[in-house]
């Protein structure tokens, strides 16, 4: 819109001595202003309101809301769920990255698409599929009930739903990385007599460690914050099957706004920490890439 002005008045543009590949300062300011305003309203305000509402009744009330037994139970359950889901998906991600990144085989692209599948499925449907499999009305329900095994409306269901929604995180981060690094170093190690596991732990793992950490923190953030899928399988039993996001919902629906935001502020802090670590890793790997490119350039010149 604003940029159209420059087209209508080409003489004015030509007389100004600015590079042809940038815009008028006024346009630049306007676009930057709109972008900052948009991000401010949509990203900064939600963060600000979480913390300001959490502290609306002061620090003592804030801490008391967090010390409440049901809040503690929710925090514990969230830690358990993430504590199982993240390592499980980590092992899967490494295995998938090794198989897909290091070898060429038939049906590889289909496998990659299938791994991405959980991202395409609505969280609510992700929870529902486990209810249909393990619930009383479900396929395995009668058998589980006969053997007194509870999965749905219990902790195992919450863990399973959490694993499902965070399934692709580590794998999709590692597969392109392993592919890009190629097999040369591993082949050299094997030729020199290293065993398969030695090669993996001494060569591959150090090469992918930042990508691994990147995938793990994103996986963890989602695991601790998942709401829809867990809501379907949890049964909402206070103090027993409530995770932190579900506890926030209960408090909010009971009009206990300040305690709801107090508990929410914990997850908001986790989100900020996640973004910080993520940016730090991105910055670090970018610098490494620049180093490598510079080294390659020097080598090329020689």
């Amino acid at each position, binding site marked *: 819109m604003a*940029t159209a002005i*420059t*087209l209508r008045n*080409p003489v004015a*543009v030509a007389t100004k001595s600015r590079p*042809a*590949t940038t815009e008028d300062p006024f346009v630049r300011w306007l*676009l930057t202003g709109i972008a*900052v305003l*948009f991000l401010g309203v*949509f*990203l900064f*305000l*939600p*963060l600000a309101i979480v913390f300001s*509402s959490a502290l609306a009744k002061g620090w003592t009330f804030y801490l008391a809301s967090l010390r409440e037994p049901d809040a503690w139970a929710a925090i514990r359950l969230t830690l358990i769920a993430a504590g199982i889901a993240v390592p499980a998906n980590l092992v899967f991600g490494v*295995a998938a990255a090794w*198989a897909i990144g*290091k*070898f060429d*085989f*038939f049906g590889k692209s289909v496998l990659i*698409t*299938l*791994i*991405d599948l959980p991202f*395409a499925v*609505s*969280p*609510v*449907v992700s929870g*529902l*599929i486990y209810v*249909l*499999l393990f*619930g009383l009305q479900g*396929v395995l329900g009668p058998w589980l009930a006969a053997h007194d095994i509870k999965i749905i409306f219990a902790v195992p269901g919450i863990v*399973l739903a959490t694993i*499902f929604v965070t399934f692709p995180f580590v794998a999709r981060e590692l597969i392109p990385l392993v592919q890009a690094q190629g097999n040369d170093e*591993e*082949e050299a190690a094997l030729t020199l007599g290293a065993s*398969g596991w030695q*090669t993996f732990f001494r060569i591959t793992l150090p090469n992918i460690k930042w990508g691994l950490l990147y995938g793990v923190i994103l996986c963890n*953030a989602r695991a601790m*914050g*998942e*709401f*829809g899928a867990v*809501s379907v399988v949890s049964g909402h039993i206070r103090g027993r099957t409530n995770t*932190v*996001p579900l506890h*926030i919902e209960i408090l*909010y629906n009971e009009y206990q706004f300040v305690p*709801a935001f107090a508990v*929410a502020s914990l*997850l908001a802090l*986790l989100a900020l920490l996640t*973004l*910080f670590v993520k*940016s730090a890793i991105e910055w670090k790997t970018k610098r490494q890439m620049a180093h490598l490119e510079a080294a390659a350039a020097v080598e090329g010149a020689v």
Partner: protein
Amino acid sequence: MTFTFKQRSILPGFGLSLGFTILYLSLIVLIPLSATFLKTSSLTWAQFWHVVTAPRALASYRLSFGASAIAAFINLVFGLLVAWVLVRYSFPGRRLLDSLVDLPFALPTAVAGIALTAIYSTNGWIGHYLQPLGIKAAYSRLGVVIALTFTGLPFVVRTVQPVLEDLDKEMEEAAASLGAGRWQTIRRVLFPAVMPAALTGFAMAFARAVGEYGSVVFISGNMPMRTEITPLLIITKLEQYDYAGATAIAVVMLIVSFALLLTINLLQVWGGRREKTRPALEGPPIPVQAQA
């Protein structure tokens, strides 16, 4: 030519890693997903059709798809703008803002939901400015669009950003030296280059929005026929122990999700092919290689 399942390699562990990958994928994802389709087959086709085309279900599709399309479009326009500003201009706080773009991925949806509701309710920070104008943001369809815009915000920015960064300035300089105005250069040179990425981001934002639950349920008000999204309808049916009904709607959503996943993959292939063919179409890529 004989069919070979796997190319020869001296690296060990193919069987173990692929075996584990497929086992884990089957147990966690494939078997549970197929159980859903199995459950639907307990309905006759007529029953299934009756459930998925009930007026309340149709109203929820209209809202879910309509609001998702509007939100994804807002994200397309502002995502292009934000990506452009973050890549091309420098201003104080740019890096901080760049990291903050991923907030909707990192912030749990329930937290986003209650925060947005608090901001847009009639006595909220923004809501109390909108109320005198007669705009009801929270507990309305507008609220659904706001929540979905928040959840889909990073997609277009993050798909377009790397394309803009990799774009050679020479192309713009060439366009300018051949007499193109700035707007013409943007429209004819930059826009076609970022289009595949932007559309991929749009489709991703749309796909995410269609299935979104947590951030919407707080702000939407959840009135049947008016502000009830499809995922919420599934939950409502589950709470009424209508498992068959919930499953039927879920199957509709799954089919839509798979179609969107396919579209996104095709868009990515299209974008990738453009990248590869571009140097060939525009002459020998000598300068680029000389730089490296």
